[in-house]
């Protein structure tokens, strides 16, 4: 980590083309992970198991969407394009989110017989959330000062998201055999994709070299350690080494699920991008 000079502003970041590229790449990973997961959360609106959960889950999805907005605005400041356009007009291969967050909530569509898997929603949000916490903590010492600042703020909020999901994990793990079986099946499904979360993409070496975030191996080890501890506390069996999906989302390879998500979420925006909201 020889080049970890602290960069205070977007203008300063733009003076070094290599730094700018590495930073943008990382910001797209952060933005797209939160944006797509928040979108999947929004698809649960009106479908959550009870009214209180519906309010809570929508509120958290809105907050995660707000985190994505912060990152897209940082990209806008860096000259990558308008935040709204970045979110809504890019093709799937420009997205850098991990495959885990784009998976559909279950079978059927929101308007067409949604058979969504609540266990999967819990396991995905919890396991992604564990990684997000480790990542935000690592970003506190990012060389890009604005990123370190917003990360600190996000951590104060993310804490509550994790409390919420942890209650669900604990209750279902210690409930009826059916609840436990379904939760375990959902964890297994999430775990098959979760190994990609700590992937920093094709530009990983530059991203780490510029001191933007800690190295992949370090993020991964910390995340696994913390997750293993919580699994033990809850009384869940440790699923072992996480798997990785066939596609590499961090390199712009995605599943048809992302195409569906992007087509739906940007449908209105594409009709009239100049409309005022």
């Amino acid at each position: 980590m020889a080049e970890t000079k602290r960069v205070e502003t977007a203008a300063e970041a733009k003076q070094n083309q290599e730094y700018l590229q590495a930073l943008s790449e990382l910001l797209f990973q952060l933005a797209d992970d939160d944006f797509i997961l928040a979108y999947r959360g929004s698809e649960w609106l009106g479908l959550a198991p009870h009214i209180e959960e519906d309010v809570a889950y929508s509120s958290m999805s809105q907050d995660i969407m707000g985190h994505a907005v912060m990152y897209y605005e940082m990209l806008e400041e860096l000259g990558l394009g308008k935040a709204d356009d970045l979110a809504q007009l890019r093709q799937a291969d420009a997205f850098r989110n991990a495959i885990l967050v784009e998976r559909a909530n279950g079978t059927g569509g929101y308007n067409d017989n949604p058979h969504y898997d609540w266990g999967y929603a819990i396991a995905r949000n919890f396991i992604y959330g564990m990684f997000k916490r480790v990542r935000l903590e690592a970003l506190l010492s990012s060389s890009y000062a604005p990123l370190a600042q917003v990360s600190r703020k996000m951590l104060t909020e993310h804490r509550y998201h994790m409390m919420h999901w942890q209650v669900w994990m604990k209750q279902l793990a210690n409930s009826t055999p059916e609840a436990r079986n379904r939760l375990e099946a959902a964890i297994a499904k999430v775990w098959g994709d979760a190994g990609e979360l700590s992937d920093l993409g094709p530009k990983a070496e530059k991203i780490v070299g510029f001191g933007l975030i800690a190295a992949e191996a370090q993020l991964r080890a910390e995340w696994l350690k913390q997750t293993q501890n919580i699994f033990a506390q809850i009384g869940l069996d440790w699923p072992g080494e996480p798997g990785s999906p066939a596609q590499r989302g961090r390199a712009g390879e995605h599943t048809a699920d992302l195409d569906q998500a992007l087509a739906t979420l940007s449908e209105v925006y594409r009709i009239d991008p100049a409309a005022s909201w």
Partner: protein
Amino acid sequence: MAQGQNVLDDRLEAACWELLQEVKDPEIPVISMVEMGMIHKVRVEEGVVHVEVLPTFVGCPALEIMKNNISEKLLQVEGIREVQVHFVYEPAWTSDRIAREAREKLRSFGIAPPPLDYKPGDAWEVACPYCNSPYTQMENLFGPAACRSILYCKQCKNPFEALKPIYY
């Protein structure tokens, strides 16, 4: 800059602070944004006022409304021709920034204020804003806004909300 200009800007700043007391939190209309500790800085330069605002929650949907309300209000100040609202994250907003006198107003609105001097790991004990009983129960960590939770008082049998402690 001439000395006269400085004095004028200082006076305009004071006028802006005063009017900002009237800009309420859109979700909690009894409390001003100043009392919420959300207004960090007000700086006037040649008729342009720059207001630095600390968001309580990054994902708060009321941020745009606050921005517009601030602009509308400050344009009423004679001598102000433009309002620039900036959301800043340094320093980060924490719930200890809420003014002491505002805490009572929150209670009167049915919202329990966040605990003072809260430290990570502390238990979050919430007294009912109506009857002050500690015999309350968390119903939903996430209420109608991300910054609030929904609780129920087992003493006076009222549902109420509480502002989450935000700290780092």
